[in-house]
């Protein structure tokens, strides 16, 4: 830690940086005396959960904090030059030219009305780079450098016309426009699919080799450990630990770092394989489900093709796939919100959904719906905004005809079951944390006494440590109430210690299926192998540094 006590002349140096926000007379300190440095050719990761002050730090380094922020530091310098007293005009010369900024969501960060080429061109124009002709050439070169194939054609496309990975590359090209020696990347891969994440990772490594100093901001310790030379762990605005990546991963000093590492889903052991009892019947069975949409040119595009699955009592079947793999459409068909084009679904041994016109209507499903509950990625939007926790649970209990007099005690029992205090009963979910909201959603799902719970990316929007808690809770509840989960996720690590059986989807088809342990240890399909490889980073990173 003290190897950086002498601030390097060439580099970004921060000493005792504090950022306070004053809102309505209340001062809130977002960053407490943070010190670190970044030199050329290294990647430093700033890791923390939401509210840890990592994004505020990044914005402070770019002079992008609003007027209600009070920044103070003993030193904030770039190549020996202090940035503390910079005016907005001076900042503008530094941003882009000296320090590039890569934002999380390329769709938001790039202008929706202009082509990516025009966007980068503007950055060059703003810094008075070259002439009109050389600029266009340079833009093309930047896009190619960032790994965009066929850049000549894509230069004219808007951000929304590019795929997520290409969009992120365009954003990186944009940040590289003036060839800034330093880059700050705020959650550069969070919104991307695992296989695309790996590609962006490689690109950032190449930039390091090219001599750029990169500060990566991430909530995901596992991800940055594959990449960063040093890691800084932040918690509630304080730096709790700093060190070389391998040291920090192998021998974390601070209890918070240990907690973060333990929460890493990739570190958790896979669930022991229990073979399906051949005599039990599946609760939920889907056969040859297909669903397609008509495209502009008249042909039909299959979103889901020939999907069959069976969910057995007390087991978890995980459906893994990247965005666009058809897992959400499959979930909607299973929920009965979307009629399959071919195939059928049976639930509890009775017909649930049919592709052909039969007597299976929504009305005939309604009485059985409580047996199939669901929790969603964004629990807040699944609650009526006017309702408190009590109304939400009350409403769910009314579905299974719990008499009014018993509902309060049942609601309290449900809150206890999901380990929430009874004081939350009168609260609106809007005022609860993400983890608490998901617990409320689980309580509501349990209220109707289901046999099957469909979990649609239930932890994707949560911090790692909260993820671990919710996954633990789901595991405990499963044992206690003998529930079956159909667990949909894009992240193999998340399902690692909850899934018994696994289905991997790609482009609407099932490419691999089997017991979770089998697939995690011996993936057969190349795509699954890629997914498993992308998911095993923490082990790799530590191994790499040890060898």
């Amino acid at each position, binding site marked *: 830690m003290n190897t950086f006590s002498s601030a390097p002349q060439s580099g970004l140096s921060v000493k005792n940086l504090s950022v306070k926000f004053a809102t309505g007379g209340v001062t809130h300190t977002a960053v407490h005396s943070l010190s670190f440095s970044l030199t050329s050719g290294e990647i430093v990761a700033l890791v923390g959960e939401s509210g840890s002050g990592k994004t505020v730090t990044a914005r402070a380094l770019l002079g992008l904090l609003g007027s209600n922020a009070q920044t103070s530091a003993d030193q904030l310098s770039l190549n020996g030059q202090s940035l503390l007293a910079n005016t907005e005009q001076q900042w503008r010369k530094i941003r882009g030219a000296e320090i590039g900024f890569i934002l999380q969501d390329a769709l938001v960060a790039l202008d929706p009305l202009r082509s990516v080429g025009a966007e980068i061109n503007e950055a060059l124009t703003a810094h008075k780079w070259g002439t009109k002709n050389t600029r266009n050439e340079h833009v093309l070169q930047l896009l190619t450098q960032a790994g965009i194939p066929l850049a000549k054609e894509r230069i004219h496309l808007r951000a929304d016309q590019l795929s997520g990975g290409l969009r992120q590359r365009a954003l990186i090209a944009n940040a590289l426009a003036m060839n800034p020696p330093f880059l700050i990347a705020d959650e550069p891969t969070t919104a991307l699919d695992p296989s695309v994440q790996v590609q962006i990772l490689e690109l950032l490594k190449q930039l390091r080799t090219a001599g750029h100093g990169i500060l990566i901001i991430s909530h995901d310790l596992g991800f940055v450990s594959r990449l960063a030379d040093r890691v800084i762990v932040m918690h509630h605005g304080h730096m709790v630990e700093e060190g070389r990546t391998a040291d920090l991963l192998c021998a974390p000093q601070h209890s918070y770092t240990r907690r973060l590492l333990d929460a890493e889903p990739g570190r958790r052991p896979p669930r022991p394989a229990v073979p399906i009892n051949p005599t039990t019947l599946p609760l939920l069975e889907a056969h040859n489900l297909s669903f397609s949409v008509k495209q502009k040119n008249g042909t039909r595009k299959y979103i889901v093709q020939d999907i069959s699955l069976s969910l057995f009592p007390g087991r978890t079947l995980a459906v893994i796939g990247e965005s666009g793999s058809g897992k959400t459409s499959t979930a909607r068909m299973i929920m009965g919100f979307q009629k399959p084009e071919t195939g059928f679904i049976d639930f509890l041994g009775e017909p649930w959904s049919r592709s052909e016109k039969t007597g299976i209507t929504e009305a005939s499903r309604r009485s059985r*719906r409580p047996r199939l509950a669901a929790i969603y990625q964004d629990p807040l939007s699944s609650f009526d905004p006017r309702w408190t926790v009590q109304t939400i649970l009350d409403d769910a209990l009314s579905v299974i005809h719990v008499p009014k007099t018993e509902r309060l005690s049942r609601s309290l029992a449900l809150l206890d079951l999901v380990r929430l205090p009874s004081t939350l009963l009168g609260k609106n979910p809007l005022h609860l944390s993400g983890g608490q909201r998901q617990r409320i959603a689980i309580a509501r799902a349990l209220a109707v006494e289901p046999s099957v719970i469909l979990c649609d990316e239930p932890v994707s929007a949560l911090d790692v440590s909260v993820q671990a808690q919710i996954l633990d809770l789901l595991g405990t509840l499963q044992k206690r109430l003998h529930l079956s989960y159909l667990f949909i996720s894009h992240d193999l690590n998340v399902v690692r210690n909850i899934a018994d059986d696994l289905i991997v989807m790609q482009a609407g088809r099932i490419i691999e299926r089997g017991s979770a342990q089998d697939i995690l240890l011996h993936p057969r399909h190349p795509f699954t192998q890629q997914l498993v490889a992308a998911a095993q980073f923490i082990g790799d990173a530590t191994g790499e540094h040890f060898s």
Partner: protein
Amino acid sequence: MSATNSLPLSLKPSPRLWLPGSQHIGLTLAFLYLTILILAAIAPHFLTHGNPYGIAPREAFTAPCWQHPLGTDQSGRDMWTRLIFGARSSLVIGIGSILLALCVALSLAIPGAFGGPFAEQCVKWVFEILFSFPTVVLALLLTALFSSGTFPLIVAVGIGAAPGYGRMLFGQFLTIRHAGFIEAARSLGHSPAQILTRHLIPNAFRPLLIAGAMGIGQTIIWASSLSFLGLGAPPPAAEWGTMLAMGRDYIAEAWWITFFPGVAIVLTMLATTTLGRFLKNRFETTTS
């Protein structure tokens, strides 16, 4: 926050409704004015002892004075008394037609948004037709069918105002149709009727209240305009628009006959709009 919070329907818990503080002078005045107006509509005798139809030819065209603070009209009837008595019919027309408009709007928007693609298209057409139909022509038609009076006026203004609210509600229902909590309610096993009464109507109620409060002033103006054209209550009815029309002939000699009903209409419009904006600000402030 996530994109869900940008729904046009206010996806927020009910904020508490406080009484206006001293800094909200406009709002206080609006509340005061509306209180007097409602009092006048419910118990006009509390504010005046006169008879709105009592003719006193000898006192005709009396300018505002101590005895007749707002003067008298061409038949010597006290303007203040007539204005007070006119408040009832103005409010009845304003509120009645807004309620009718909202009912029509709701009964078109709900089946339009939840009745499938065919119903959606039909409702869009109905809105187009209603939009292209001038309110004045509709009022003429109704007065031709029935006699002129308060009821046809309410119907004409109500139908005329309906498509505007209808489109607003329709758009909001279309957005809310795929909201997570509607799907969650369906997956719990609630019937469409339960979803309608538990989620859709209550969530649409607040924007409706705001739109209604802001719209009353507008409908009173419309109703007065129609009365002014002779399509409302016939003279000597104590109705603001009719009074305005009657004073038109004497505007050079007796300005007060036209002026005070006009002021009453404008103030009502201002007060209801202020109230509506207040409700809007209370209910639709962003929580971020």
